């Protein structure tokens, strides 16, 4: 009997990947949904098993084809990848579970098996990027996840989804190709593609010009993929017009995987070897982060479409993550990684609630939900919980990351106080834009002509509430994400000179 334990890092990727071609053989759309959901939950189970192993201090490395690294391709799972895997697989599982009811509106039955096949490929691609320890392998899986997510977004029923997805395709391909140029230049100077090996070998050539240029290309390429301000142009359209279930999945994890790679590359490969890189990193990212936070929140204040409103809020939240990282301190990185987790929870819950009301209210404009809370109390109370978590109310997950972020900023004296002010102001803006939704739903009158909407379908509603309750659970008991984030930030800083 084969012991599958050591093979878990590989199975995390190949299980959803190999399930994808099997699913199109299932002609019935409901069967395809069941199969995809089960596969997704299985990969969630694998992620949980890996996380438990990591928490027990186990090291996971995997040599593909048994060829020794750096010649063959290596996979690695550490605390940082474990928390990412948890986010990706749980987001995919919950979103799929809720997708049954909302997708029937957007996508014809005969196209659904293809859709679920693409969904599993996104999942496999994101997991593949997370566990890869080889620079070129990351590119391959980045392309799988990108191509598959273009398919998912193009499933939106509004025709504006198509130009949005075309724009995303162009920007995404530019980003991936910039990354490829960067990898090429590093390979040219070091002769290796394995990340750990690269860290060793880059040392000899560290301040040569091709390496500096490579650092620039890789950073810009990944920043494009991560929708870092001002390269965020593709994100609002893609999130707004994608099918609602897809927005739940992608908003919770896809840009974060690019941010994860950005941090990994920077701290594992560049920080230890390029002199003064930490200062450049701070000066480059901090202004962008602050601008992202302020501009993202400002635009969200005036947005009429709820999905677009939340998409701009995501741009601001990406800013928080970068702000923590740009402090280049243990507390800052911990805050940033905790926020990976908590933002996924809050946005996941919010977008799930949005997909509930989109089914019943016939649209996602703020006017569509006027007075809807009276007949849909459960949906809107879940939305309020998600909103409070996004604002950072004590008792919710969002509070934990804001708390860590502010304490990390205050370590830095004068500039820290300014940053704290920025965080507080943008939290206030979040209060305003969440309030706009609450006000419309609870306090405005519904136009008489339209019938009052019913409560959302039970399955979708219970998934939404699961996500909302997770926000409260991890607000009260944040040990798991905080422990993982602390060891992840230690891992990253270990490599600093």
């Amino acid at each position: 009997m084969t012991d599958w334990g050591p093979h878990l890092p590989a199975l995390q990727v190949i299980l959803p990947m190999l399930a994808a071609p099997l699913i199109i053989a299932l002609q019935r759309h409901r069967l395809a949904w069941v199969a995809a959901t089960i596969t997704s939950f299985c990969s969630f189970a694998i992620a949980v098993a890996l996380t438990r192993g990591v928490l027990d201090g186990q090291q996971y490395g995997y040599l593909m084809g048994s060829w020794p690294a750096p010649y063959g391709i290596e996979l690695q799972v550490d605390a940082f990848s474990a928390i990412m895997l948890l986010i990706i697989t749980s987001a995919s599982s919950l979103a799929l579970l809720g997708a049954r009811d909302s997708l029937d509106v957007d996508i014809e039955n005969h196209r659904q098996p293809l859709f679920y096949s693409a969904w599993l490929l996104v999942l496999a691609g994101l997991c593949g990027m997370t566990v890869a320890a080889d620079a070129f392998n990351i590119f391959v899986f980045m392309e799988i996840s990108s191509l598959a997510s273009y398919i998912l977004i193009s499933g939106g029923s509004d025709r504006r989804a198509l130009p949005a997805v075309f724009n995303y395709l162009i920007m995404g391909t530019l980003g991936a190709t910039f990354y490829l140029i960067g990898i090429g230049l590093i390979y040219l100077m070091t002769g290796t593609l394995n990340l750990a090996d690269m860290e060793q070998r880059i040392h000899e050539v560290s301040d040569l010009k091709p390496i500096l240029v490579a650092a620039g290309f890789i950073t810009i390429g990944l920043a494009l993929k991560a929708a870092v301000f001002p390269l965020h142009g593709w994100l609002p359209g893609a999130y707004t017009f994608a099918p609602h279930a897809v927005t739940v999945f992608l908003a919770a994890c896809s840009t974060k995987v690019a941010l994860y790679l950005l941090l990994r590359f920077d701290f594992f490969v560049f920080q230890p070897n390029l002199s003064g890189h930490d200062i450049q990193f701070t000066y480059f990212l901090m202004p962008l982060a602050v601008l992202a936070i302020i501009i993202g929140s400002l635009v969200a204040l005036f947005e009429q479409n709820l999905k677009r409103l939340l998409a701009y809020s995501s741009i601001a939240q990406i800013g928080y993550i970068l702000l923590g990282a740009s402090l280049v301190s243990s507390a800052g990185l911990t805050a940033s990684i905790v926020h990976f987790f908590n933002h996924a929870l809050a946005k996941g819950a919010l977008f799930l609630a949005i997909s509930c009301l989109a089914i019943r209210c016939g649209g996602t404009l703020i006017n569509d939900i006027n007075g809807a809370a009276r007949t849909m109390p459960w949906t809107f109370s879940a939305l309020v919980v998600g909103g409070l978590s996004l604002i950072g109310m004590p008792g919710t997950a969002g509070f934990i990351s804001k708390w860590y972020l502010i304490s990390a900023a205050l370590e830095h004296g004068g500039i820290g106080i300014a940053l704290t002010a920025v965080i507080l102001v943008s939290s206030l803006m979040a209060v305003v834009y969440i309030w706009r939704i609450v006000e419309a739903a609870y306090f405005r009158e519904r136009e008489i002509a339209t019938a009052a909407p019913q409560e959302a379908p039970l399955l979708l509603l219970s998934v939404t509430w699961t996500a909302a309750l997770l926000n409260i659970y991890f607000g009260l008991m944040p040990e798991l994400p905080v422990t993982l984030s602390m060891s992840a930030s230690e891992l990253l800083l270990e490599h600093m000179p």
Partner: protein
Amino acid sequence: MIELFGIFLLSLMVITAIAIVQTRHLFAAVILTGVFSLLIATNFFLLDAADVALTEAAIGAGISTVLFLSALALTDEHERSSSANKYVALAVVAVTSLILIYATFDKPRFGDPSAPVHQHVAPWFIENTSSQIGIPNMVTAVLGSFRGYDTLGEVFVVYTAGIGVLFLFGSRRTRQNGEPTKSGLDPSEGLRHYLIPRIVGRLLIPFIILFGLYVQFHGEYGPGGGFQAGAIIAAGIILYALLEGEKQALRVLPDRILTGLMAGGALLFGVVGIFGILAGGNFLDYSVLFDNPMTGQQIGILLIEAGVGMTVTGVLLKIFHAFAAREHI
């Protein structure tokens, strides 16, 4: 002499690229893109990359041109609007190029055998191909075994593109057979009434397919492998569809078989990998498949290359048929 030829080819490439961007006639731009691919393929050949040259010629100049032309038939042949944000574009391009020129300083000399790129990992591949795998073509050895996991990912990229196009075109509006198109020609009839293309084509097609099979199974010994073979076989069948009509082509290779090829090839690759685990090795470890590790490696590479060939053929034909069956508004 070869230097002169190289410089000549590279200059031609630049001129072609400028012409492609300048022309507002999209048909011309697509044909020039095919020319561009052939030029770059020749250049790859001069740089000792025979496998890459073969792939670029088959995929870039062949399949990609056919797909662009089918897309043009469904859209417009003329570019209407003028360029926008010219200055933004020029600024971005100027900055990028300055940075790239900055990177040229400190770069190792072209072709220098002692450059770091040829030192670390590459010699290991060159040595171990004969000692561990025992096939002459190192590119196939690296592609199929040493970095087989990348190739698996790549097969899934192709598969993703296939289901993507099917998903996009799955909604509404697919031409019913026999309905006339804008050009007045019924593509399901093909060029059946044109004698010369038919006769020449009939002579060519068996050789193209035979060549494809040769490239598929000779990939361990010479330039070739699943990707190239898949593209060549697909090109042969597309030629058949153009001559005899799509209906006839679908009768020879029905849609179900194409779907089977598309999904089956990717699965075959994955299953070979899983057998590695079951036999006590790691994923994609072919050495454990047979008593003699070298035989295992060779059989493993043969099987996964077959998987690659199947998926590539299936996906390319599926995409071609999907485009061809789309009705013009």
